[in-house]
């Protein structure tokens, strides 16, 4: 059973779906962001698992470590970037949440989106 | 025919109308008369330049200039061959007269009207001088949009509605046409140019494919040429537009569609392929239906310009019918009718304009006795009306004669019946106008000094010279061209060269 052998990947995929589900279904925008982060984390997990090597060691060349036994450093390097991106998006999204809460007084996405727009001509002028 | 020679003259001709535009842009607010006469000069210069090519064209020269080439087969090129030159000459001449006429006729928003007049002239001249379908389509579409402001110039509700209808028809037609050209390009092995005997052949494409191309072309151009199920915009647009614009619509813009069909039949498909595909009966039937039905519709109209518009629908189909005969005389008659009809219908619409300006009357039933108020105009009107019926000696007669001869040549005398029916119907809707204008003045009796009498024949109450002179010129030409058609530059001298090549 390849699926059972690849249980890391399977777990990552399930986590991914869980995250997506949270993003889609939850109405609280903070929870949506949490879902987003779950999705991101699942992908990080997936990447790191990709680099795994049976009985591998850290890819640091000290004391004559055998390169053939080292785990793959590329996914680690990539996912560092991924994490930074995730943090950045989360920071931006959170700051928007702060602003939205100040302006609408709610975190419920349905109420947010249903909120009547002010007169169309006005919207460009504020700020 | 000789090889084509490079010449910048076609480009100059196409660009000259822009002089008018520049004049308008230069003094948008000041020096109104000067500005308008500059527009006239631009139009005159265009006509002059086109005329200057006449000797060369009669010698069989072909002038060509490449504007741009997208890829090898897809280029924008202006080429003046005899057929294109013929159309170009007709349109610049009519445009010249319409411009003169407009100077006095248009009473508001001169700038917009003259600017778009000039633009349209440039674009249609581009159509006439196009070397291939690609170029033709480009100018054709620009012309479509350029003529919109002319139609809605009055800005009445009726004009807006007519303009809207025009746009709907034109855009749909443009789309179909676009498709036709892509299909042509695809199945024609990338040959979009106008060949002397056609460029498409069954070698590269199946019968069904070529039929598709043909009928999409027909539908695309048919809207402008007002072939019957596609004519809907014409009767609305003509009455709504100012008279000089109606004259141009009828005399030139409808002809751009017809000219497109001529190009498709002669230079894209070629006569042999048309015979092989057996499409001509369909076209002929459509044309016949249009001729008869449009004339019947014309009978029922009371609005003069609307009646003239229906008349135009029928008359343009003469051209199509002539082509569909696939016979020497038929083609000759059809193509010559392009000019003939432009002269006649141009004159008629300008007359209608004079009537509108002087008396404010639009409907025929109100026009009793108008022949006495506007004698010169109405005499010209009558001349053209008679010509429309095919009375000799006039251009209308030449057309009818040639078409009749062509139908005999094609072995289908049934066309003669159609032509005769059309002539009768023409008589039925034109003669009443003449009759009302000159012989029925009950409605307009005035009471003076205790007795009733009719307005006297008073000369000198005619409209401005700018209005009358074009009318008179056109009416005179209706006769002159009808009698001496072989004078260099007149239709026969040009068209016969083309047709003699195609039908040796």
């Amino acid at each position, binding site marked *: 059973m390849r699926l059972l052998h690849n249980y890391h990947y399977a777990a990552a995929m399930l986590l991914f779906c869980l995250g997506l589900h949270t993003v889609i279904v939850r109405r609280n925008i903070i929870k949506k962001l949490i879902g987003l982060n779950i999705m991101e984390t699942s*992908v990080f997990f997936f990447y790191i698992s990709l680099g795994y090597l049976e009985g591998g060691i850290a890819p640091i060349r000290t004391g004559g470590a055998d390169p053939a036994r080292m785990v793959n450093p*590329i996914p680690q390097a*990539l996912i560092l*970037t991924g994490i930074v991106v995730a943090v950045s998006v989360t920071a931006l999204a959170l700051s*928007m949440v702060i602003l939205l809460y100040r302006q*609408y007084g709610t975190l419920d996405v349905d109420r947010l989106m249903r909120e009547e727009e002010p007169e169309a001509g006005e919207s460009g002028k504020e700020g | 025919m000789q090889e084509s020679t490079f010449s910048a003259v076609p480009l100059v001709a196409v660009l000259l109308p822009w002089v008018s535009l520049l004049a308008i842009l230069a003094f948008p607010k000041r020096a109104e008369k000067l500005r308008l006469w500059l527009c006239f000069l631009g139009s005159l210069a265009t006509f002059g330049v086109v005329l200057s090519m006449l000797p060369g064209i009669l010698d069989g020269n072909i002038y060509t200039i490449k504007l741009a080439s997208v890829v090898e087969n897809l280029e924008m090129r202006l080429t003046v061959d005899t057929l294109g030159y013929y159309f170009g000459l007709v349109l610049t001449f009519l445009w010249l007269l319409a411009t003169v006429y407009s100077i006095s006729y248009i009473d508001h928003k001169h700038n917009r009207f003259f600017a778009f007049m000039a633009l349209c002239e440039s674009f249609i001249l581009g159509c006439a001088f196009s070397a291939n379908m690609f170029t033709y389509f480009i100018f054709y579409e620009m012309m479509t949009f350029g003529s919109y402001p002319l139609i809605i110039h009055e800005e009445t509700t009726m004009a807006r509605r007519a303009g809207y209808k025009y746009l709907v028809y034109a855009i749909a037609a443009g*789309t179909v046409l676009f498709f036709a050209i892509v299909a042509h390009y695809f199945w024609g092995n990338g040959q979009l140019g106008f060949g002397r005997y056609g460029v498409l052949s069954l070698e590269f494409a199946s019968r069904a494919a070529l039929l598709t191309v043909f009928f999409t072309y027909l539908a695309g151009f048919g809207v402008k040429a007002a072939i019957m199920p596609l004519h809907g915009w014409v009767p609305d647009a003509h009455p709504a537009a100012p008279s000089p614009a109606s004259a141009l619509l009828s005399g030139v813009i409808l002809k751009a569609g017809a000219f497109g069909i001529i190009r498709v039949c002669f230079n894209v498909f070629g006569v042999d392929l048309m015979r092989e595909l057996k499409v001509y009966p369909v076209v002929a039937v459509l044309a016949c239906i249009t001729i008869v039905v449009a004339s019947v519709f014309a009978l029922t109209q009371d609005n003069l310009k609307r009646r003239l518009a229906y008349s135009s629908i029928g008359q343009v189909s003469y051209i199509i019918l002539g082509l569909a005969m696939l016979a020497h005389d038929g083609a000759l008659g059809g193509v010559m009718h392009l000019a003939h009809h432009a002269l006649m219908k141009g004159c008629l619409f300008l007359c209608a304009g004079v009537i509108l300006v002087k008396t404010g009357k639009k409907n025929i039933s109100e026009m009793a006795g108008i022949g006495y108020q506007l004698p010169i105009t109405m005499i010209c009107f009558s001349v053209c009306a008679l010509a429309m019926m095919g009375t000799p000696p006039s251009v209308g007669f030449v057309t009818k004669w040639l078409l009749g001869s062509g139908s005999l040549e094609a072995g289908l005398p049934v066309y003669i019946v159609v032509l005769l029916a059309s002539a009768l119907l023409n008589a039925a809707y034109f003669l009443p106008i003449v009759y009302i204008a000159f012989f029925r003045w009950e409605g307009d009796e005035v009471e003076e000094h205790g007795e009733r009498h009719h307005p006297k024949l008073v000369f000198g109450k005619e409209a401005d010279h700018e209005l009358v002179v074009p009318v008179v010129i056109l009416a005179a030409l209706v006769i002159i061209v009808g009698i001496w058609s072989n004078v260099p530059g007149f239709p026969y001298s040009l068209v016969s060269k083309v047709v003699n090549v195609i039908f040796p």
Partner: protein
Amino acid sequence: MGAWRHFPIFMITVPLLGAVLLPFLGYVREKWVPYASLLPLGTSALLGVLLIGRIPSGGYLSYHMGGWEPPFGIEIRLDYVGLFLMLVVCGITTLALVYSRRYIEKEVSGGRRTAYYVLYLLMSGAMLGFVATGDIFNLFVFMEILALSSYALVAITGNRNAVRAAFKYILMGAPSSIMVLLAIGFLYSVTGTLNMVDLAGRIAESGFTEVLIVSYILLVVGFGVKAALFPLHMWLPDAHSIAPSPISALLSGLLVEVCAFALVRITLSVFTMRASDLVMGTADAVGVAAAAAVLYGGIMAILQKDLKMMIAYSTVSHIGYIFLGLTAFTAEGLTGAMYHMLDHGLAKACLFLCAGNFIYLKGYRRIEDLKGAWGQMPWTCFAFALASLSVIGIPPTAGFISKWYLILGNVEGGKWLYAAVLLAGSILAAVYCLRVIYYMFFQAGKEGAWEEYWHDAPPAMLLPVWVLSLATLFFGVFSFLIIPSLLKAAAYLL
């Protein structure tokens, strides 16, 4: 090999560096920021222009970052098409930046103005990097810079509708980025490489068909959201209509295009060899979605009352055009798609900037308010009309040329239905564009809605508008400058 070899990397990094340095200027002389921000973009544009002719239409320029040869290091791989798009990006961003100064002064409050220019430069640089890169992970990185800066730029006015639209955009954009990341992970897991050329070779040999298909689907969905392909377009109309107009111009005119381009590249140069059995099924679905987009976008645009909303829906429709050109899988179709990116970019940017002029001067957003606009703002109105003609595809504008090739490409690919859809799309475009033009030119405005005398936008706002609208005309008439090379390059890509 001369110094020009290094130009692409500087085209990308100079705007990014400029963005980093701009705040310093912001502290010292805030007034100079709008002018100074032109410098990096101008430099990029100049370098791009200098590159013209260096890249043969069948070849490419490969630049090895850090000197590491491709599968090991990151490669900038710039072919003719890529350079073409980079130039479009440079041109439009520069023009919209010129436009920005006056508009932003009015729309964005003081403290945020410097941030606006910083983000603007980041976005421009990211687009350039995004187009040029030859490494699929690097593509992701630049996509994220692009996405982040565009989220923030949509919200920059800080009013509640804007923030809400931006948040909606994030809620769709961020999961789509993650999908792309996941897809890259899948690709990496079965090929062990991230370089696009290397990937193409490895994919051709790889046996893991299921993984490849799913990663392709994920990529299509991921980039489809960013490019606003039909069922995934929900964020677009709000974001594009509420953002400040120069930003709308960039979003509509460039961002969706470069994302579509990324998908084009992934389809054609990553999944190349096995296009027939791997990609076709998905590509067919994309074709259907694109056809639906053309019609849906067009119809929705007709129904809109808000001018910018209408233009935004028109973008949805035109993205469909681009994808239909791609899914034809013919050189002509691809050429049409590429050329459409150019002319749609120019025309849409122009339309949005024109809409911005109306908002700037009169605060009018609704189409009805534009009745009689011609009397006061003739220059804006004329530019709008010209750009609309390109959107419709009337000759001789560039829109006509691209439509020509799109339809020809679909006809050659035997996709007659799509050709018909494209034609229908242009009819729809005619309806929604001509309505606005009709209002502007041929209807009388309400009493007091417009000044009696000409009072058009300031020159700095008219100049970009006119340059853009004349460019649509220019590239229509002089399409021969580009089309043959594009055709060759497209044939090479296929």
